[in-house]
């Protein structure tokens, strides 16, 4: 063992890694998503739901209904804002949200 503090700590650090740390909580992911969408909306409308779908993205059951609407503003609206899944996802870890293709449900996995 080295009595020089610098060499001692250098040696310890060289052999330590930070791989085994907890992942992001589902609450954090939910909050990040909500915040990022809010910020995106400040710069312009979101991509229409029908466009996202055509692009290979899967929509949740509510979005699928809205994606059929022929009105642009209806398709651009972020329905998560008024959905209980968002509230639960942001507030509760491992929230009971099970809607297929709902981002807040996906973050629980």
């Amino acid at each position: 063992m080295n009595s020089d503090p610098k060499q001692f700590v250098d040696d310890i650090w060289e052999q330590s890694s930070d791989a085994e740390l907890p992942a992001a909580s589902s609450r954090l992911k939910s909050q990040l998503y909500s915040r990022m969408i809010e910020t995106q909306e400040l710069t312009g409308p979101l991509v229409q739901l029908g466009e996202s779908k055509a692009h290979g993205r899967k929509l949740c059951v509510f979005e699928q209904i809205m994606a059929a609407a022929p009105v642009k503003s209806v398709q651009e609206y972020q329905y998560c804002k008024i959905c209980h899944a968002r509230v639960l996802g942001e507030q509760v870890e491992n929230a009971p949200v099970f809607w297929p293709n709902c981002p807040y449900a996906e973050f629980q996995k």
Partner: protein
Amino acid sequence: MQILSENTKATPGIYTDLDLAREVLSRDRKATAEFIGRYADPVAKYLRSRVMPRVDLVDDLAQEVFLAAWKSLGNYRGDSTLKSWLLGIAKHKVEDHYRRRLRESLVELPDDDDILDPGVNQELRLLGEMQHRWTWEILSELPENYGLVLRWRYWEQRNASEMAELTGRSEKAVERLLYRAREQFRQKWLDRDGARSAKAKETA
């Protein structure tokens, strides 16, 4: 901000890092969800490792990282993976945090050279798992500025001169802080090792 044009859209269902970046930039909510889903874990792990024991800071820093990423995503050219690119932003945020905290704590450092002679030399067996755990535990026990300066030095590979420049303090002051941090880290390690050896003797 650069917006995805029709002829640069990704093939449906197949998203490379660059495709994903372009789709997020075009304000596609589903791509944004995938972006968060893919990269929140590595970013949060990185942040946690750098600010422990202040894990309460992780959420705020993660928000700062992703919002900064959104603002500069137009500059992403796919030269590195999105994960590396995001971790680069996270590194800047962590360094901002270190700089702020150390700038405050260095002001309180006495300007003398009362450095203790370590004079301790015990045999130490470094066992992989135990060493890893001890490192984390000791980092959490150290005063905040000691933990910060060690992480900054070793994980972010900043030398005393760079840290001095970034914090606006003298190199000597940073070196003193580093010395004390290392000495305290070492002392805590030796205390643990002593306790472990004594326990082993008792059970033998």
